[in-house]
């Protein structure tokens, strides 16, 4: 079953895409990544085409993970040096179980083959057939989540820049809230912490999909991260830099009192030094 592998065994970007391989690398380095599988492009395409054997093969392999699931594209040319595909390829959060994966994979396959994705491919000089690999992971129910740059992306200073909000990190990534922002020196000293305005939290619905929940008034301007969490994030940044090299763009979440790494990719913008 070379087209479907546990994330920890994934290492070939030309088969599984950089997102899946990055998570595989992280797991092998002992980083706290939610468990999951990577599906190669041809398998995703077979499922999208309604091939029943492929649908069953994926469902039976993924079923032991339980649910709900987060399903993310990991197209083989996604996150390239010159093209990010940000917003082009779909992420489906809270797919209730492995038995609903067929429809989810079809939607993701079409998102990479939609008019807007193809227009984008033309614009960035990648007018080739997309190979849509996918990552399927257990979906966390985070108390808070967000993003972290291991170096200041504006001025290049050697400090961690962290943004955080309540619930799933998509509220931060999609710009639905003004997140809390933190600046932490490499030695752990907190240089700045500023509370945001977090009126919305994205959370999973029992039957699948997500909802934008109103945040309780007393939490809207309360900081999500205490000092110990900032220490843990600083340590995660250090371990990610050790594993992947400097200047990382990290997505993280805190669930059940544990800090998880959701994604780690190279920073694409650098202002100063």
């Amino acid at each position, binding site marked *: 079953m070379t087209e479907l592998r546990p994330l920890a065994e994934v290492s070939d970007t030309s088969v599984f895409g950089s997102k899946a391989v990055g998570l595989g690398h992280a797991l092998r380095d002992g980083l706290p990544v939610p468990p999951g599988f990577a599906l190669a492009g041809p398998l995703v395409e077979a499922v*999208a*085409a309604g091939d029943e054997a492929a649908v069953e093969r994926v469902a039976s392999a993924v079923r032991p993970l339980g649910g709900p699931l987060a399903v993310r594209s990991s197209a083989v040319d996604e996150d390239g040096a010159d093209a990010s595909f940000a917003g082009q390829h779909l992420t489906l959060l809270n797919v209730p179980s492995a038995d609903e994966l067929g429809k989810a994979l079809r939607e993701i396959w*079409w998102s990479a*083959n939609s008019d807007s994705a*193809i*227009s984008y491919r033309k614009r960035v000089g990648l007018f080739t*057939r997309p190979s849509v690999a996918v990552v399927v992971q257990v979906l966390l129910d985070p108390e808070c989540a967000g993003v972290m740059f291991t170096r200041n992306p504006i001025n290049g200073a050697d400090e961690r820049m962290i943004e955080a909000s309540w619930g799933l990190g998509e509220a931060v990534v999609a710009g639905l809230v003004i997140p809390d922002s933190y600046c932490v020196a490499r030695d752990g000293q907190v240089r700045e912490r500023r509370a945001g305005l977090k009126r919305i939290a994205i959370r999973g619905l029992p039957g699948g999909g997500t909802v934008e929940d109103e945040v309780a008034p007393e939490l809207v301007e309360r900081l999500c991260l205490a000092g110990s969490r900032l220490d843990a994030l600083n340590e995660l940044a250090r371990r990610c830099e050790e594993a992947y090299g400097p200047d990382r763009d990290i997505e993280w979440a805190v669930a059940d009192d544990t800090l998880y790494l959701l994604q780690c990719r190279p920073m694409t913008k650098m202002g100063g030094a």
Partner: protein
Amino acid sequence: MAGAPAEALRRVPLFADLDDDQLAQVALLFKERDFTAGETVVKEGVDGAAFFLIESGEAKVTVRGAERASLGPGDHFGEIALIDEGVRSATIAAMTDLVCYGLTLWEFRPLVIANGEIGWKLVQSVAKKLRNAELS
């Protein structure tokens, strides 16, 4: 294996001259694509990447904001994009939940390149369309 129903594809002028085996090959390349009510299916002015055949549901066609037509089961749109990779000439929005079969240029092009007979019939079909347009 799924794919689109061949009998529905037979009514698409671009595919009308294909024989049963050829049509079956084309039909197998289609994948189901679902849209929810209110969703934009294709947008005027955006590069087209796929041809769609409606299986169920209703859609509305607008050009520069003006409503031009309604589409329902068996109707189709976007076949020229498979060949010229050009921009959409209209916006189509799902009025109800919409189930379509879609064929992208990535699947269609290799089939035509590999099968000269299918390619020739498609050229004839496009020529017929051009002649009809000149006469009208």
